[in-house]
């Protein structure tokens, strides 16, 4: 016996099915009934019921790529805010190896970095590292924050959404699984991209979103609609974790950037370019991809408050 359909909006405590179904993430079993524990949408596959949350905070997981902000510099590590109930640390040896350097000359409070979660301990504190292409400090650009649960929708199937935005705005975009997005390009394009990203976040659950976004982008940039309608790929509700291609693509993009960055930095301080060189030796894309494959199988949603329309009424009349 099942009481809901795929993609139905459900709320905590709502009875979803009897126990001939399997209780997946976002659900719990009680007295032979499977109930939702979250505000979210039902994902029904075979006989397994899950609830994908509309909102939830980011909880760090080993292998995730995140965008973090340095909030403190300590003797042998940086404290990093990763937009989560749990903070991250970036140990000095993840950056320098055994070399001794002054930490705040490399990354200082307020710097924003692209990082990888190397490990998560029993109290969920995340150990962060920079192994992976394009990881390190962002220079310029803007940070956009969205609900971490909306990250897969922003990327789209095989990166369709994010690539379209990148192509049209000529912005570089890096998406962290913790809901922070870095965008760099022309000043006006950065602001347009911010708007577009928030639009995707607000309308993640609606159908035909890719075309809608495409039209909006073309209108804003060219002043006219795109020449031909793109075929309507059924990609609504790609609420799961992005497929590995997205990240591979993301990393490839980052690779180019890292090279540019390295080139830039070589002409700047020698200290930083050393760091870049070190980075180039380390990346192991195969390992990263394997990691994602494994993680694709089990993954929790995450989030952040977003309330666009708030029109509560408070009038006596």
């Amino acid at each position, binding site marked *: 016996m099942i009481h809901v359909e795929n993609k139905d909006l459900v709320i905590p405590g709502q*009875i979803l099915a009897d126990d001939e179904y399997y209780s997946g993430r976002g659900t*719990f079993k009680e007295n032979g009934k499977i109930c939702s524990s979250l505000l979210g949408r039902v994902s029904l596959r075979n006989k397994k019921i899950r609830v994908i949350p509309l909102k939830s905070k980011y909880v760090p997981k080993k292998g995730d790529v995140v965008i973090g902000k340095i909030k403190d510099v300590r003797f042998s590590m940086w404290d990093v805010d990763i937009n989560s109930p749990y903070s991250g640390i970036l140990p000095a040896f993840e950056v320098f190896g055994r070399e001794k350097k002054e930490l705040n000359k490399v990354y200082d409070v307020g710097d924003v970095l692209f990082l990888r979660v190397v490990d998560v301990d029993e*109290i969920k504190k995340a150990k962060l590292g920079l192994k992976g292409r394009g990881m390190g400090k962002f220079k310029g650009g803007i940070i956009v924050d969205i609900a971490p649960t909306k990250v897969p929708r922003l990327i789209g199937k095989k990166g369709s959404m994010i690539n379209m935005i990148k192509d049209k705005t000529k912005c570089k975009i890096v998406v962290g699984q913790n809901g922070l997005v870095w965008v760099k390009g022309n000043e006006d394009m950065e602001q347009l991209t911010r708007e577009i990203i928030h639009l995707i976040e607000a309308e993640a659950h609606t159908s035909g979103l890719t075309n809608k976004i495409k039209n909006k982008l073309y209108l804003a940039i060219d002043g006219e609609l795109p020449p031909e309608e793109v075929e309507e790929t059924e990609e609504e509700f790609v609420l799961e974790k992005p497929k590995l291609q997205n990240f591979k693509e993301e990393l490839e993009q980052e690779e180019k950037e890292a090279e540019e960055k390295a080139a830039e930095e070589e002409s700047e301080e020698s200290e930083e370019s050393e760091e870049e060189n070190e980075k180039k030796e380390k990346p192991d894309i195969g390992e990263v991809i394997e990691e994602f494959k494994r993680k694709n199988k089990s993954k929790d949603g995450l989030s952040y408050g977003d309330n666009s329309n708030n029109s509560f009424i408070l009038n006596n009349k």
Partner: protein
Amino acid sequence: MSDIIRDDGRKFDELRPIKIEAGVLERADGSAYLEVGGNKILVAVYGPRESYIRRLLEPNTGVIRCRYNMAPFSVDDRKRPGPDRRSSEISKITADALRPALMLENYPRSMIDIYIEVIEAEGGTRCAGITAASVALVDAGIPMKDIVVGCAAGKVYDEIVLDLSEKEDKEGQADVPIAMMPRTGEITLLQSDGDLTEEEFAKAIDLAMEGCRKVNEIQKEALMKKYSIE
């Protein structure tokens, strides 16, 4: 008893007009606004988040902290701002009422803050606060077993009635506020003050539970309205 008509024209088992809206604040992780009768309640939820008050945290689960506060202008005679003994007690029992429904094992050592602001009070603010707080918790994406809901019954002019107004509360003989998890019918808050026979108490609790179920439908509608596809 079923044909009595109360001061404000309600039947014995009738709630005051009630309205709930989810997600009304920008900054909070979750929020809700509730009006019932002359009560106006606003709730914000922050978290799960890090807390500097280490001693309150637990290694295996997230914890909640609740602050019930009345605006100085919410009552007839201006109330001095800040907590008093009454609001401290309500804060505590509200947290106790909500806690059984929360599933915070995935958020060890984290804190959820629930801020209940009574903008205007007209009897039954503690139940209204709990009802609104649950909606705000759901709105914040907090995992829960059920949506806790509060409602009171009481005795006014020797009749057991539902959802006492401020006037009935003042003139009445007893007030029994409860909170429950509607799916299982388990009770998470119970207070009683005044004079009741055993039989009257049983009647009051049945009536209050029935009231809770009605209010729960409005909680659900508020959430569905906020988040269903247009």
